[in-house]
C-alpha cells in the first residue's frame, strides 16, 4: 500500500497581492507515508498545504484525492473529506477550555434541545489526551497553557477526527525535545494506521528521523522530490538554496572603524546579561532560534521596549535607559528595519511618499509645518536610490510586492541621518532579486562607515554578509564567531544556537581561540 497515491496535485498555482506564492507545482502524496516539504522562508510551503486544507482557494491547476477531483470549499469541507491541518500559528480560542477547543463545531449534544453535553465532551477529550500521552486537564483554559502545550492540544484536535491526510505546518518550532519525541511517536502510530502525513519543517535532523520522502520548494516553485533514505544533506541544501553563497552577497569587508554601539550586561524581559559591541563599517549578525530573544534585544536598544538593567553606549556615550524612546534613538542616529514589515515597518494605507518621510519629519520640518515639495523630493530620491518598482510615489504601499515594500521601509530610514542600522529579518518573504539588492544596500551602508546589525534566521545570509555573528540562545549570548575563523560555518552556528555549542567539537580549536577582533582602538575609548 506504500505506493498507492492518495493526493495528486497538477500545476497548482496561487497568487497573492504582489506575489505569486505557488507557481505551477505538481506533486503527489502516497498513502501511509510521511512526506516532508522543505524550503527557505517564503518558498510557498505553507501556502501549498493551506490550499490542500481548504484555507485558500487554488488559482490554477487541479487536485485529485484518491482519483476524484478534490476542491475543498473551506476547512470543514476538507476535514469532511479527510484532510486536516495543524497550523504553524496557533489558532485556538484562548478564553475557552481545552475540551471546548478540541470539539468546537462538533460538540456532543444531548436531549431534545440539543444542549452541549459537557460531561461527555470532557470525558472524550480526556481519553483522547491520555491516549496521546499528553498530561493536560480538559477543563483548563487554553490561555493558561504554555505555547508547547497548546501546540499539543492542536495535534490532539486534528487527530480526533478520521484523517486520510494530516498536515503539520512546522509543528515543532515551539516544542521541547520531550514533546517532539511524543509527537514523533504519535506520527509513527498514525502512519502505521495508514494515514498520510505532510510535515513542514526547517529542522534537518527531523527530516532524517521520520521522513519517507522529501520535497523541496524554492520561491514558490517545485524543485524536486527524493527518498529520504538515499539523499545527502548537502544535496538537499543545494536544492533549497539553488545558488552558491558567493555570487549573491558580494560582501566587501573593510577594516572596522570606531566603536558605534556597546552594551554591558543589558537585561530585559526576554534576554539577560548581553554584552555586545558593533563598530563602524561592520555588519554584525545575530543568529539563534525563533524566541531566543534577538528581536527583543534590538527593540530594547532602539527604545521600543523597556530594558530592565545594564548599560548601552552609543559612540561611547551612555544612553539613559530609563528615559529612552524610539524618538530619542532616532535623534541619536539609530534606525530599525522591523521584523514585522506589515504592522511595524509600514503604514499600509499610506502612499509610498508618506511612508518614506515618516521617520525624518522632525529633521526636515522642525517648526511643525509640512512642505510638500520637500516630501516629494525626499521620496523621489529614496525611490530612485533603492530602485523601488513603481509608477508613482503616490501609490499606496499595499499595492506593492513584498520586496518593494521592504525597499520603501529601508528608504524611510536612509532618509534619516542614521549611523547605526538594525535590520531585523530584512529578507523574510522577499523574492530573490530584491534580496540581493537589499544585501547590496547593507554592504554599501557598511562601506560608507555605518554600523549594521542584522538579525536573520537564514544562516547562509549571515555567513555571506556578516563580519561577525553573535549567537543567542534562551536570551543569552551563547557564542560569537568572526568571518575570519574556520568555524564560521552553518553547523557550528546552529550548534551554538541549539545546544550552546557544547556538543560540537571545534573543527579548528586554534582559530576559535584567537577569537573575534575588537574595534579599532583609536577614538572609542577617548570618546567615552
Amino acid at each position, binding site marked *: 500500500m506504500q505506493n498507492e497515491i492518495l493526493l495528486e496535485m497538477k500545476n497548482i498555482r496561487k497568487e497573492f497581492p504582489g506575489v505569486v506564492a505557488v507557481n505551477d507545482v505538481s506533486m503527489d502524496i502516497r498513502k501511509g507515508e510521511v512526506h516532508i516539504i522543505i524550503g527557505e522562508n517564503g518558498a510557498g510551503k505553507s501556502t501549498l498545504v493551506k490550499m490542500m486544507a481548504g484555507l485558500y482557494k487554488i488559482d490554477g491547476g487541479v487536485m485529485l484525492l484518491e482519483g476524484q477531483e478534490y476542491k475543498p470549499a473551506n476547512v470543514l469541507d476538507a476535514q469532511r473529506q479527510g484532510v486536516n491541518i495543524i497550523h504553524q500559528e496557533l489558532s485556538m480560542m484562548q478564553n475557552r477550555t481545552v475540551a471546548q477547543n478540541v470539539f468546537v463545531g462538533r460538540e456532543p449534544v444531548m436531549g431534545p434541545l440539543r444542549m452541549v453535553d459537557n460531561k461527555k465532551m470532557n470525558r472524550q477529550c480526556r481519553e483522547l489526551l491520555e491516549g496521546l500521552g499528553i498530561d493536560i486537564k480538559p477543563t483548563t483554559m487554553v490561555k493558561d497553557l504554555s505555547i508547547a502545550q497548546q501546540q499539543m492540544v492542536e495535534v490532539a484536535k486534528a487527530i480526533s477526527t478520521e484523517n486520510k491526510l494530516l498536515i503539520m505546518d512546522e509543528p515543532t518550532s515551539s516544542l521541547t525535545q520531550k514533546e517532539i519525541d511524543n509527537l514523533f511517536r504519535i506520527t509513527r502510530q498514525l502512519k502505521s494506521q495508514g494515514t498520510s502525513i505532510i510535515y513542514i519543517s526547517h529542522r534537518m535532523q527531523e527530516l532524517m528521523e521520520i521522513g519517507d520522502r522529501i520535497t523541496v520548494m524554492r520561491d514558490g516553485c517545485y524543485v524536486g522530490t527524493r527518498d529520504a533514505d538515499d539523499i545527502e544533506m548537502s544535496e538537499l541544501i543545494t536544492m533549497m538554496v539553488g545558488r552558491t553563497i558567493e555570487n549573491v552577497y558580494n560582501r566587501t569587508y573593510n577594516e572596522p572603524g570606531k566603536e558605534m554601539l556597546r552594551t554591558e550586561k543589558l537585561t530585559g524581559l526576554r534576554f539577560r546579561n548581553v554584552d555586545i559591541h558593533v563598530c563602524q563599517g561592520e555588519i554584525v549578525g545575530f543568529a539563534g532560534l525563533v524566541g531566543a530573544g534577538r528581536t527583543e534585544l534590538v527593540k530594547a536598544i532602539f527604545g521600543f521596549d523597556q530594558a530592565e538593567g545594564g548599560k548601552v553606549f552609543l559612540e561611547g556615550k551612555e544612553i539613559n535607559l530609563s528615559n529612552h524612546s524610539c524618538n530619542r534613538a532616532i535623534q541619536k542616529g539609530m534606525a530599525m528595519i522591523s521584523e514585522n514589515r506589515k*504592522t511595524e515597518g509600514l503604514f499600509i*494605507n499610506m502612499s509610498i511618499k508618506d511612508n518614506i518621510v515618516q521617520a525624518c519629519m522632525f529633521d526636515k520640518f522642525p517648526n511643525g509645518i*509640512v512642505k510638500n515639495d520637500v516630501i516629494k523630493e525626499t521620496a523621489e530620491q529614496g525611490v530612485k536610490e533603492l530602485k523601488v518598482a513603481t509608477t508613482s510615489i503616490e501609490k499606496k504601499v499595499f499595492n506593492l510586492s513584498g520586496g518593494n515594500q521592504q525597499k520603501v521601509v529601508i528608504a524611510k530610514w536612509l532618509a534619516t541621518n542614521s549611523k547605526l542600522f538594525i535590520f531585523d529579518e530584512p529578507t523574510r518573504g522577499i523574492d530573490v532579486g530584491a534580496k540581493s539588492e537589499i544585501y547590496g544596500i547593507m554592504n554599501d551602508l557598511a562601506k560608507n562607515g555605518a554600523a549594521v546589525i542584522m538579525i536573520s534566521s537564514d544562516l547562509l545570509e549571515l555567513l555571506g554578509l556578516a563580519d561577525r555573528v553573535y549567537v543567542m540562545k534562551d536570551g543569552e549570548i551563547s557564542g560569537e564567531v568572526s568571518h575570519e575563523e574556520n568555524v564560521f560555518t552553518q553547523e557550528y552556528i546552529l550548534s551554538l544556537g541549539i545546544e550552546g555549542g557544547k556538543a560540537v567539537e571545534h573543527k579548528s580549536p586554534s582559530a576559535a581561540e584567537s577569537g573575534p577582533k575588537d574595534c579599532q582602538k583609536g577614538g572609542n575609548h577617548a570618546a567615552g
Partner: protein
Amino acid sequence: MQQVKEKLKNIPGLIWGVLVIILVFIFFAKGFTKYQNILNILSNTAILLIISCGMTMAILSKEIDISIGGVMSFAGLGGALFITRFENPGIPAIILTFAIGTGIGLCFGLFNGVLIGKYKYNYWLITFATMSIGYGAAQVINGGNVVSGFPKAFRNVADSKFLGIPTVVWVALVIVMIMLFITYKTRFGMHIYAVGDSEQCASQSGINVKKTRILIYMLAGMLSGFGGVLLVAKTNSAGPVAASGYEWNAIAATIIGGTSFEGGKGGLAGTIIGALVMSMIINGLQLMGFSNYWQQVYKGAFILLIIVVDVISRRKKKKAALRRVYKYDEC
C-alpha cells in the same frame, strides 16, 4: 476620450452617490436650488461641520470620541449662564463666553486624552463615561432647565448676516480652514494618520503616540465646547440635552465622507462633503413635505445608498489595482 474615461473612473463613488441625491432633490423638492435655501443648508451644516472636524481626527487615529454631544451641552450651558449675567454684553464678554465653552471642552478633552492616550484605557468606555458626565453636569448646573432669551450682540455671532451669508457659516469656514491646515499641512496632522494606520510603526518611526493622541482629544474637546456655545447663539436657547445626537451625526458625516474605521484612511475634505450631505438630505426631505418621522427613515435609507455605492466602487478599484500588481510581478 480615453482620458476623460480615466478621469471619470478616478472620481470617488461617494461623489456619484451625492450627485444622484442632489438630482433627485432638484427634480422633486420644490425650491431646493433657491439661493435662500442653499444658505439655509449651509447654516444648518456649520455647527455639525465644526464638531465633525474633531470626530474625523479621532476616527483617523483609529479611535472615536462619543463624548462630543455631552461636552457640547455642558459647555453651551456654561457659556449661557455666563452671558445671561450681562444685559448688554460687550465684545470682551462675548469672547469670554466662547472661551469658557472652549475651556470646558478642553478640560474634557484633556481628561479623555490622558486616560486614553497615556494610560491606555479603552476609548469607547472613557468617552462614553465623559459623555454621560457632560449631559449630567449640564442638567445639574441649571437644575435641568432651559435657558433662553440671549442678548442680541451674543446671538449675532451666529444668527446674523455678513456679506449676505449667515455669520455661523463664516465662523465654520474659518475653523474648517484652520483644521484643514492642521490635518494636511502640519507634522501633527501627518502623525494623526500615522498613529491611526499603525501605532507600532508610528512609535518605531519616532512619533510620540501618547502626545499625538492627547492632542487629538484635546482638539476634539475644544471644538465641541466651542460648537456648543455657537449652537446656543444660533438657536437662542441652551438646554441640557440640546446637543444630543450630534455625536452620531458627526460620526455619520465622517464615515460618509470616506474616513474609515480602519484608521489612517480618509480626511477632513471628505467630511466637509459628508456633513453637507447630512444637511441636504434633511432639507430636501423637508421640502418634499415628508413628516418628521418619515424624514428619519429616508435619512437612513439615503445614507445606506451612498455607502453601498461608495463601497462597490472602492472594491472595483482595489481589484483593478491588484490586477496591475500581478502583471508586473511574475514569478
